[in-house]
């Protein structure tokens, strides 16, 4: 990716910079040349299906695992060498939160905060209330969602510069998911950087400035959602009073479907390369547009496009 598309100010540095990361476990290549850049102050979506290498990347970034090849920089330091110093500046929510069975949620929040070097007391109270979390329960008594809330409160109540969240909402109900979004937005407003690994696309679409889509341990696509949309096609449906002529010959138009309406006129459905949308509209307008919908691709469509190769053999088998 290039920095040219979005102007960067002189003081903005990258919170995370990983290039060519490789990590193998026996015969499996969990990371296969992965690149990831997270700019300071942004909420970055880290997308990929299960097993794509999201958690492995995060473990490498946290210095819990050492990559076989490639380079990684975190907050300007080396995640393996400078682990302890860097960890004081970040907060981490693992994908599968397990708590000590005989410590209460409140104790875990305090302990993790103190081990990091501090906790914002007011924020702790606010977050407990927001997430409706009972801090007096013992670890073994919490459900999956509540264990996740314990880790989220501990992370959001810290004064960390960087939050690394690994599928943090997989056990939350929709109401709590909303509270989670509010909290992430507050973090962004406070100038913190968030790496949000997820496969809940609506969440990423709502929260993230930029996304990186990975597939089989490699980066498939990275950029802002707008940039990614530009690379793909827009779906257009138009009801026309007259005949628009031969649209199939237009550059960038695909999946064309023209059928007569019950009254006079026709309904045109097609997909068009987003940068050719203007040309298509120039042809439609003279035919008398009665209604027009043009829908940019959803993240889901972007996402699926990258995995169609993976899906096809699976369906065949």
């Amino acid at each position, binding site marked *: 990716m290039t920095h040219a598309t979005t102007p960067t100010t002189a003081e903005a540095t990258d919170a995370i910079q990983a290039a060519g990361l490789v990590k193998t476990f026996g015969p499996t290549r969990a990371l296969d040349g992965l690149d990831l850049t997270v700019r300071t102050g942004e909420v970055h979506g880290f997308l990929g299906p299960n097993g794509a290498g999201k958690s492995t990347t995060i*473990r490498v970034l*946290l210095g819990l695992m050492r990559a076989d090849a490639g380079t990684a920089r975190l907050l300007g330091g080396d995640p393996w060498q400078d682990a*302890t110093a860097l*960890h*004081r500046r970040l907060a981490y929510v693992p994908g599968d*939160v397990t708590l000590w069975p005989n410590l209460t949620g409140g104790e875990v929040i*305090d302990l993790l905060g*103190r081990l990091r*070097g501090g906790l914002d007391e007011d924020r702790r109270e606010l977050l407990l209330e927001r997430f409706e979390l009972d801090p007096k329960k013992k670890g073994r008594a919490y459900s999956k969602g509540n264990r996740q809330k314990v*880790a989220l409160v501990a992370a959001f109540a810290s004064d960390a510069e960087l939050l690394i969240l690994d599928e943090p909402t997989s056990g939350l109900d929709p109401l709590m998911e909303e509270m989670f979004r509010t909290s992430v937005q507050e973090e962004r407003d406070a100038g913190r950087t968030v790496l949000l690994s997820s496969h809940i696309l609506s969440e990423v679409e709502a929260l993230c400035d930029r996304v990186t889509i990975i597939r089989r341990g490699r980066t498939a696509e990275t950029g802002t959602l707008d940039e990614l949309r530009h690379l793909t096609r827009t779906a257009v449906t138009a009801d026309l009073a007259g005949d628009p002529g031969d649209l199939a010959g237009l550059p960038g138009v695909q999946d064309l479907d023209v059928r007569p309406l019950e009254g006079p006129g026709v309904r045109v459905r097609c997909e068009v390369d987003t940068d050719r949308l203007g040309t298509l509209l120039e042809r439609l307008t003279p035919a008398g547009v009665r209604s027009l919908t043009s829908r940019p691709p959803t993240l889901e469509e972007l996402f699926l496009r990258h995995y169609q190769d993976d899906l096809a053999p699976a369906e065949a088998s």
Partner: protein
Amino acid sequence: MTAVTLAPAPAAGEGGRLAGTGMLVKMWLRRDRIMLPAWIYALTALVSSSMYSFRTGYDEPGALEKFARGINDNPSTKAMYGPVLNEHTASGVAAWQTGATGAALVGLMCVLLVVRHSRAEEETGRLELVGAGVVGRRAPLTAALLVAATAAGTLAVLATAVMIAFGAPAAGAVAFGLAWFGAGMVFAGVAAVTAQVAQTSRLANGLALAVLGTGFLLRGLGDVGSAHWLAWLSPIGWAQRVRPYADEQWAALALPLVAFALLAAAAYALIERRDLGAGILAPGPGPSRAAPSLRTPLALAWRLQRGSLVGWSAGFLVYGLAIGGIADGVSDLVGDSDSTLKSLRELGRQDDIVDAFLSTAMGLMALLTAAYAVQGVLRLRAEEAGQRLEPVLATGVGRLRWAVSQLAVTVAGTVVMLALTGLAVGSAHGLRSGDLGGQLPRVFGAALAQLPAVWVVAGVTVLLFGLLPRAAQAGWGVLAVCLMLGQMGPVLKLPQPVMDVSPFTHTPNVPGGTFSPLPLVSLTAVALAASAAGLLAFRRRDIG
């Protein structure tokens, strides 16, 4: 009316509530295919080794009687084992030696089995998965009780067969087996109730074992003091009251069976009153804030390990007092039995019989302490594999600091436990022998001299954790090898280089033997080197 909606349809009736029991029994017997044979083998071996030693070790006329009278005159052995009821036959004395302790062990086995297959299954959520299938509400507990009954029943048959094979009268052997079976079923019933009452398997086991311990204590008090009725309150006392080989009292077998029926009925009644996953005792809320001291990895390690350390220490204290109480009378006990004398001397590797007994006991305490240490070191792996380590390492805590904190608590625990043992054995033995000032320091020193060998086992386990985290459980294997070498080595006359593999071989035979500091220094150095290598490997490897 949630209880009603949760219950199966009335049309299903009693059979419906038990649906799936057979499948569960099969599944759990399969899960226990290692654990059950191990228990049954160990307890059968207990009977056969006791029968063997009393049949072969006391062949001169009057030897058995002399031994038995020694027991019956000694309050501390009577407290541990009860009185000898038939002084004249080897089977009678073997029934004394294994009857009460064996009944307690069978009870322990049944408690662990029932809780493992009822509350523990529920706690982990596996039962929910099973319960959603065609499984009646009463099926899991019924299956757990059936597994316990199968285990206790098999054991009873084997114990009876072994005794008969050694030439014991059939009636006594059958009574002995049934007494064990009865004790097992009572404690299975106790566990069935505690598994409904407690919400965690830990608490369910704890409550049932407290009942077991109380039973053992009441029996001991009843056997020693004048209040003999106390033993009638104890399920272990009931097993004695069957009087194998001493005019068998078959009617006494009704006690455990009635008790079991009542306990099982109570457990089933409790099942109907509670939801899946809930207990009758709801765990109380804990503090909403951490104590101000809970701010370092060391404080966390202490918090996680203190419960287990207190439990082990209490056990060591009681056992130490018992050992110290018996020690002075041990020469009367052994009497003229040459083979027992010889084997005690071989195990203790010295001549004075009291010191040989004490140093053998210290060696055993050292092995038990090593078991605590292995368990403590394996907590490192448990934290890692249970994914509780990652969030801690993602804070400002480095790997070494975390690991050293955990190990420091474990190592301090080994010191506390052996120091307590030394104090308990030393003061009890000192008071009984009337030489407190002389015995306490030397016994205390002997207890502390066990530490370096314990640390070697712990250090090797740290090394395994660092280098081969997935195989870290092999630390138990290391301990098992040491145990086998120590127990079987002298009997099998294994060559010295083989014996030297075990660190416990190098511990001086104290009290009594010659003490030299060099082996202790070397053992400590080995332990430190192994731990350091393990920690370095841990620092370099991947977490997970």
